[in-house]
């Protein structure tokens, strides 16, 4: 990885990061565009973000793990707001009686990757080049920290009104998910959170490292391909060692906002080499399973990314629509989720499917 221990992100880095996080979001995490707009405003006002190598963190550093929780559809109507995003961080500091040394995103994928960068720009706190998913996932227990059985509490959650809640303790990650989801749903299915704080050592040992730079490199590759008029989708596959599974046109999207999630299914009709074939994608905020002609061929924790066939731009579960021409890509899952404990938390059964994980990449060999 980079030799640089600390870098001041330029606005071009963040523009590229927005492209990368949207692809890594596997349909979820909400579009990074509104977070990017906030960061542009903050940068125009002179703010800057320092990105730190996680290996430079002292053992006892206090790191905030931030997210915007909820259903991506809501984020299209309730615009990302830096002042609202930093509230739970302040609530948590007040609760702990201690200031944070740095912050990090809980997930690199989608708007949440930039959510943390936006709070870093607004507060001046350094951002750590790591996350806990390496992608996006809908639930609190679907993190590398949960796989490692780290402590799941306390959690601070607040909405756009003056509603602020601390979850002092929870029995398990799943109970933390249940309790915080309930609060989030009452708040209008979207809320800002500050998850269980992590020590520097915990981040180093159990975080998924260097994912911010991964998103930046991915975004740069796509932007470069667009500029050079080479194929941006191929650039994604090269950059992430992924495969193209299907090319088609969206013919149906069914979605419903329930229990604080955006759930549903989309159906594609094949184009090009996939002519006359059908592909369907099930989602719970993120795409979780892809089936070709009725048979599940790709599934979480492998990353299922749906991108615009021409521009390589990520397409979210809240914005995918009738008539779009898309490529479905699969990128390898973060190693940590392939362990038995990882698959228990994020494999297909964790999303209600009645089958076990089959790696797409093993199939291909």
């Amino acid at each position: 990885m980079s030799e640089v221990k600390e870098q001041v992100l330029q606005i071009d880095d963040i523009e590229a990061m927005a492209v990368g996080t949207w692809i890594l979001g596997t349909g979820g995490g909400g579009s990074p565009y509104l977070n990017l707009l906030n960061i542009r405003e903050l940068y125009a006002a002179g703010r800057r973000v320092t990105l730190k190598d996680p290996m430079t963190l002292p053992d006892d550093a206090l790191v905030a793990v931030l997210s915007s929780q909820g259903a991506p559809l809501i984020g299209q109507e309730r615009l990302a707001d830096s002042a609202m995003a930093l509230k739970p961080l302040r609530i948590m500091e007040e609760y702990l009686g201690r200031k944070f040394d740095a912050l990090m995103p809980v997930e690199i994928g989608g708007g949440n990757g930039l959510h943390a960068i936006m709070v870093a720009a607004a507060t001046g706190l350094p951002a750590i080049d790591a996350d806990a998913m390496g992608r996006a996932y809908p639930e609190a227990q679907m993190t590398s920290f949960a796989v490692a059985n780290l402590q799941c509490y306390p959690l601070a959650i607040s909405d756009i009104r003056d509603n602020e809640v601390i979850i002092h303790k929870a029995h398990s990650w799943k109970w933390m998910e249940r309790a915080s989801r309930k609060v989030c749903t009452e708040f209008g299915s979207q809320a800002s959170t500050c998850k269980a704080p992590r020590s520097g050592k915990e981040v180093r040992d159990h975080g998924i490292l260097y994912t911010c730079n991964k998103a930046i490199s991915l975004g740069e590759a796509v932007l470069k391909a667009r500029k050079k008029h080479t194929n941006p989708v191929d650039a994604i596959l090269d950059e992430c060692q992924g495969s193209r599974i299907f090319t088609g046109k969206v013919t149906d999207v069914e979605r419903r906002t329930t229990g604080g999630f955006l759930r549903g299914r989309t159906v594609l009709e094949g184009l090009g080499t996939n002519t006359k074939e059908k592909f369907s994608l099930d989602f719970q905020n993120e795409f979780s399973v892809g089936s070709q002609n009725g048979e599940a061929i790709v599934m979480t924790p492998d990353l299922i990314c749906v991108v615009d066939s021409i521009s390589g731009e990520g397409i979210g579960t809240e914005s995918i629509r009738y008539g779009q021409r898309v490529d479905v890509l699969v990128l390898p899952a973060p190693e940590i989720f392939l362990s038995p404990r990882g698959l228990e938390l994020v494999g297909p059964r964790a999303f209600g499917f009645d089958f076990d994980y089959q790696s797409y990449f093993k199939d291909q060999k």
Partner: protein
Amino acid sequence: MNQRIGIDVGGTNTDAVLVDANGVVGAIKSPTTVDVTSGVRGALTELINSIGPSAKQVDSVMIGTTHFVNAVVQRKDLNKIAALRVTLPGSASLPPLVDWPKDLARVVNGGSYFISGGNEFDGQQVVPLDEDAVVKAAQSIRDSGITSVGITASFSPLSSACEDRVAEIISHECPGIRITCSHALGRIGLLERENATLLNASLLDLATNTTDAFRKALDDVGITAPLYITLNDGTVTSSELARKFPVYCFASGPTNSMRGAAFLSGLQDAIVCDVGGTTADIGCLVNGFPREANNVVEIGGVRTLFRMPDLISIGIGGGTMVRENPLGVGPESVGFRLLEEARVFGGSQLTLTDVAVASGLMDVGDKTQISDLPETLFTAALATAHQKISLTIDQIKTDSQDVPMIAVGGGAPLIPEKIPGISEVHRVPFHGVANAVGAAIAQISGEADQVFQDFTRDDALAAALEIAIENAVKSGADRQSIKIIEMEDLPIAYLPGHAIRARVRVVGDIAAKPKEC
């Protein structure tokens, strides 16, 4: 098909055609004038003179205009607007116009007002609407002399009550003010919906003036047929609706040109290359329709969620400037000054029109003006133009097999005969007025947008589709030709039972014998 006049009012030329069941009956090209009425009147008079007085008895007139998109692109003829955003305490860090180009925002910005209120996705209030704040905003708007406002509340596509109430207060406080409510224009996506709403609000003066001018031109030459304005999706709307929602007419130019190319060539699937005075627009026809851009579409730098043809524009046209030493072709153009500035017309600027004349591809102006042009120069300039067009065609193409291409527009002779990936370049009669032909053959649409209760999703969509088709047929569409262009549903959680808002839009060709409405 009954008799219809199609008019394309472009930046340089106003084209007019008369089309009936047998095809194009007559076509003319005349210069666009600053005063809209006289330009359209001139074109109509010329068309009637070339066909005969029977042309006045047409059944309808369809006008496609670039006025609205040009106004935004050139930042002129826009009225100042006030923006009311009803989302507080949320969405405060990104104000209205936040992602607009700065110069455009400056031209239209007549003040933004944040109001507490709006809805959640389930129909509940975020907080109660702050009516006092609305009254205060209205007073301030009245004092500032602003005459057009755009109102955007969160989740208004699911529940318009909040925007309706704000509109009611504003029109009470500011009699005569024009109001654009976001729920009438867009879907979920607050910022993009607000952008469309504010663009629309800023175009209302121009929309009124332009449609009035069109109608007056028709009256002046004695045409009493109804006037339609073409929309982004290749269909038409009454001029009344275009006055209220000019943003719907934004991208009709490229759509008309591509639909016209399909009609003139008889091809349904092809690349279309439209070379005008300033740009070459290259797009893709699929089943006779322009392929749509996938994601967000920017107009004049403003992000919206409109459905637009997927086009690439490059600076290659008849007026494109050619530089010597070193050789350079475009992207600058002499634009509408072509008839004064090009060498063959006695001017001093070398353009691609001169290059085309020197190469024997076009026969316009005075050839002797360019007799001194070295062959190496015009051959190299033409090769550069050819290469730029070929590269762009390759970008827009998604099929690895060779596909046909239709060459249209006044600058069509600049399109090379042989292009990698293209099986054949089709040159068609009336290629120079493909836009106007596209307007004349514009289709009829039908829409259904309503809430269905205690329907399954499939049943609700099927019911909406049936209503949309009936609406289209009632307006004169041929049932057999109807195609779905949009279909979506939004579950509405706050209504009892299983409630779904289903929205379906269909289009069809005009039926051979129009039905009585």
